[in-house]
């Protein structure tokens, strides 16, 4: 049977703010809720706060060369200012686990923005190298179709 009920949603969110509220809704009683006449008490509902990153500027980079404590790369914009850039980036800004990836032709992503956390907003700069698979024997041996048809002598 359909009926209107008033639900009391009680509790606090992860920041400690009281989010208790009474809500009218259509439906039926569910699970462990306690029905007191038209008043239904629900267990506190809290939405877990998920950390997330928000990029202000993001590039796809291609390593051109590595020299001492920096590597040179071209940066193609994905988010933010649209012009293509070229930068000498300090190797120390790449996580030690990924420094072995820094070689000409390697592809990486550099994101500058904010990390939103329950405790507040943090600025962040993240450089992550793309982990491309290895060349297989099959790929290398199969490559090389006949291009003769595309050329006039």
């Amino acid at each position: 049977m359909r009926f209107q009920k008033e639900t009391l949603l009680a509790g606090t969110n992860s920041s400690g703010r009281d989010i208790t509220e009474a809500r009218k809704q259509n439906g039926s009683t569910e699970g462990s809720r306690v029905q007191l006449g038209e008043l239904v008490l629900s267990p506190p509902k809290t939405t877990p706060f998920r950390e997330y990153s928000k990029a202000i500027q993001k590039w796809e980079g291609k390593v051109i060369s590595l020299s001492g404590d920096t590597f040179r790369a071209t940066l193609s914009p994905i988010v933010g200012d649209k012009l293509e850039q070229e930068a000498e980036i300090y190797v120390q800004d790449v996580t030690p686990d990924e420094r072995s990836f820094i070689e000409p032709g390697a592809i990486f992503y550099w994101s500058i923005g904010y990390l939103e956390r329950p405790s507040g907003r943090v600025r962040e700069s993240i450089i992550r190298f793309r982990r491309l698979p290895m060349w297989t024997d099959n790929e290398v041996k199969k490559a090389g179709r006949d291009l003769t048809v595309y050329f006039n002598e």
Partner: protein
Amino acid sequence: MTSESPNDGELEVSIFGPGYGEAIALHVGLGRWILVDSCLEPNSGKPAQLQYLESLGINASLAVKLIVATHWHDDHVQGMGMLVRECKSAEVAVSAALKSPHFSALLDLYGGGAFPGSSGVTEFVNVFRSLDERRKSGTKINAAKLAVPDKLLYRDNIRLNRKNREVEIYSLSPSDSAILSAQLDFYQRIPDTGTHKKRIACPSTNNTSVVLWVRIGDHRILLGSDLEKTSDPKTGWTVIINESQAIKEKALVYKVAHHGAESSHDPDIWSKLLSDKPFALLSPYSIAGNSLPKDEDLDRVAGLTPNGFITAPPKIKKFRPSDGVVRETIQAVTKTMRSVNIGWGQVRLRRNIEDSADYKVDLFGDAYNIQPN
């Protein structure tokens, strides 16, 4: 930019360049156009010549008769795939070095979707895809001509005021020796099994560049691409200067080779192949910490002719992000950072094919005369 297309009897040479990229458009008369190399116009993201022809109200699919991809370097082939696709009636010519099983293997290995973003490989894959489509639709022009020394790539007759004016375009390079060394380079770039995939670095193909010799009636134009001077007499400019059979007169217009770099300068080009005070056209090149032409290159060209023009200033343009947080982060994470494209401009020469009046020069965008004030 003027929206007036050249009249039937007018010759035009236009060079476009943003700082990293070069493209040339030639009007040889009667609405027929030749395009050499390709780069992207920054606002539209389209190939520069397509954008230009469109702005003149010209239908590129009918007007363009020949497209030449002089060599495999990203700054000369960006947008080449689109150019060939859109210019449906154009013949295509490429360096003979590309007819190699190893180049074909590189197209297969690196031309797929595993490597995001455009690269020279992707552009050539798209060129061959367009040729494939032409073949399937029954179009006769469906294969690329291979440029080698003294090969006639294009011939036409322009009839103006009851007189025929011959148009001929010859490739002057690459030499046999340059082709062989390029093919060895391609072979060495085929990856070993078990190594991590990464984007392919452009090979050193300047010496397989296609230099073009253009003859339109009594006018001669030398388009130097990126060909360099080498110590090997069988490659580079030495072969052209000493052995070319196609060059019989001197040219009044020269697209200066390799962005005016010292490595491409040979005094014999200026004394043996060019007229006095030629029109010298340059575009800048700025990548990997190298900027061309250098100040001394500009001084040298300016000392050789008062008619030197460049599409944009070859100066480093520091990147200044609009967002303060980005600006501060860049200062902390990078030693240097600068914009790849430092401007955008077009140098345009026009003259009547039939009379002896000098070229009229129009400069657009950031283009300027390199002669010191």
